[in-house]
């Protein structure tokens, strides 16, 4: 039964002739209660899929916004177990919204791939993106996921050639996360026309939906990406709301700010009717 919630969500969006909105937030930033409220606000305002970041001290692919989000979360004492518990709490009264764990390999490796997979499965998580586990290194994770309804989501980039894409696509599931710019999260944005070919190639080779992320911050950019992709991922712009909330001392601003942004992005994406070639 492979990755049923994710597939269902893409099918639903396809039926509505639109792309999905994938929203990222860091678990425990600035605390777990706030993250829970933010998860609900994202869902209630049109986020189709939620990526729940697990904090790591050395996030080598992330820019300053997500680096600092991770440090805020770690300062509050958030562990991988806490992140999984947060997912479980959300899943208790939300049976449908796909939840993807996003993070780095070391905490998962130390917990043990099998233990992690079981805990993630119990928590109602639907898959993971482990940034520093490329296809060459994710065999133990795949083995642990094989018997469970968990997706191994992999990344493609503008530097990914077609032959490399075949390696990336092999054993990948859920969707392909297409990194729009060679760089770190939260940096400059890509011109959709520059990556259209790469996105099409990733979709053709993998047979999976392709979501584009990195550098998308507002409705206008999201709408532009929605023309060429099956989904649009937004991270740093959401995370900035947790920063604002902590700095102002009013943690409620995190959920309300993220909700507002999700609404803007979701409406922008829904305003775009996909061209037949991209569906």
């Amino acid at each position, binding site marked *: 039964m492979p990755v049923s919630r994710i597939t269902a969500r893409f099918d639903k969006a396809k039926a509505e002739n639109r792309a999905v909105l994938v929203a990222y937030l860091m678990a425990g930033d600035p605390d777990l209660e706030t993250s829970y409220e933010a998860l609900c606000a994202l869902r209630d305002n049109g986020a189709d899929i939620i990526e729940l970041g697990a904090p790591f001290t050395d996030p080598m692919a*992330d820019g300053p916004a997500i680096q600092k989000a991770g440090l805020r979360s770690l300062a509050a004492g958030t562990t991988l177990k806490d992140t999984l518990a947060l997912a479980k709490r959300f899943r208790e009264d939300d049976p449908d919204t796909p939840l993807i764990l996003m993070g*780095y390999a070391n905490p998962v490796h130390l917990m043990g791939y099998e233990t992690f997979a079981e805990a993630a499965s119990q928590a109602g998580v639907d898959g993971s993106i482990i940034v520093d586990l490329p296809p060459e290194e994710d065999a133990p994770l795949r083995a642990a996921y094989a018997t469970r309804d968990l997706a191994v989501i992999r990344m493609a980039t503008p530097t990914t050639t077609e032959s490399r894409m075949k390696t990336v696509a092999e054993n990948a599931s859920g969707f392909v996360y297409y990194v729009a710019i060679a760089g770190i999260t939260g940096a400059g944005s890509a011109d959709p026309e520059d990556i259209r070919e790469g996105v099409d190639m990733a979709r053709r080779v993998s047979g999976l939906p392709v979501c584009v992320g990195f550098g998308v911050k507002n409705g206008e950019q999201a709408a532009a990406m929605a023309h060429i992709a099956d989904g649009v991922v937004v991270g740093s712009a959401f995370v900035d709301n947790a920063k604002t909330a902590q700095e102002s001392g009013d943690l409620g601003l995190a959920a309300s700010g993220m909700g507002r942004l999700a609404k803007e992005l979701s409406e922008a994406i829904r305003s775009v009717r996909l061209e037949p070639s991209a569906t």
Partner: protein
Amino acid sequence: MSIQNTWDQWPDEHGRFGDFGGRYVAETLMPLILDLETEYRAAKEDPAFAAEMDDLWKHYVGRPSPLYFAERLSEHHGGAKIYFKRDELNHTGAHKINNCLGQILLAKRMGKTRIIAETGAGQHGVATATVCARFGLPCVVFMGETDVERQKPNVFRMKLLGAEIVPVSSGTGTLKDAMNEALRDWVTNVDSTFYCIGTAAGPHPYPELVRDFQSVIGREAREQIQEREGRLPDAVMACIGGGSNAIGLFHPFIEDENVRLIGVEAAGHGVETGEHAAALNGGLPGILHGNKTYLLQSEDGQIIDAHSISAGLDYPGIGPEHAFLRDTGRAEYLTCTDQEALDAFQLCTRLEGIIPALEPAHALARVGEVANDLGPDGLLIMNLCGRGDKDVFSVAEALGVEI
């Protein structure tokens, strides 16, 4: 694992040393490191590449470095004869340049036009900036803020050499943070940039190629000791941060199972205090900076900042080949505290008239015990991998002397 007499066959085709090593990088970097591997294989086969390296090593670096009998230190300890492999006499004052030359020549072959590097003590940064000046390549060095502060002379040297220094404030502003930032720069500038890693760690093929470039140390030492003593040493010793000088000394002796390979990790205030940089003696296997190896980490898998008086050893990981040599028992790994290193620093300076860097002072601190263990007929080679000029300010401070 069938490892008998096949020590030099690692890494395997997956870039692994046993279970360690590998290529744990974001997909953005995969095409680059696969490319680098192909280029490195080609360079290794190319006699012109080796000839250019040899020429530069000889005329620019000053190789071979001497193998020196430390007579008074040997007498002082009263055990085996202690030899120093004098890599502190290299141009730029440490072993780092052996590797930089190799990597920059590789970068040139690959048509890269911009070099980035991370640095802790500043030795690798200085060596990279030096070679970049020599070849007219722009050089950007990432250095933790804390290290910028405690290694001011090296910061100025790099600037004189034309390098741009980027102080890194994330984390605790030390070597690991500098490496994170260098990796971030690399993924952002994939087309133009070559990442010149300073130690035998990182994603495959870096641990292998850095080891190969540094192995000139062990090859020379092997030849020199046989010339001087007519036989192989009983033990070779080196300090370990990431472990490049140690693996460079060890590797040419790796098949000689009667030669003990001994690394010395920085124990900071003591391994039991938690404030140290001894990944093998006080860490657990994990994944960081592109490779699986021993790491200082919390119960949740978060990386713990290392502590050492020596900026060059202040790293929470260790090259993957050392992790492998430790687990298989082929090499031994001892520790040395800040205080012991300071004592050894002074002892060597007074007895031999050689001011060592604080990094090899860690190996010096354990030399006496190993020499005694080997006995008066024994032969020991220690890699004096850097000179102490850069450290005189921090040593003065540690000794409470105002200069």
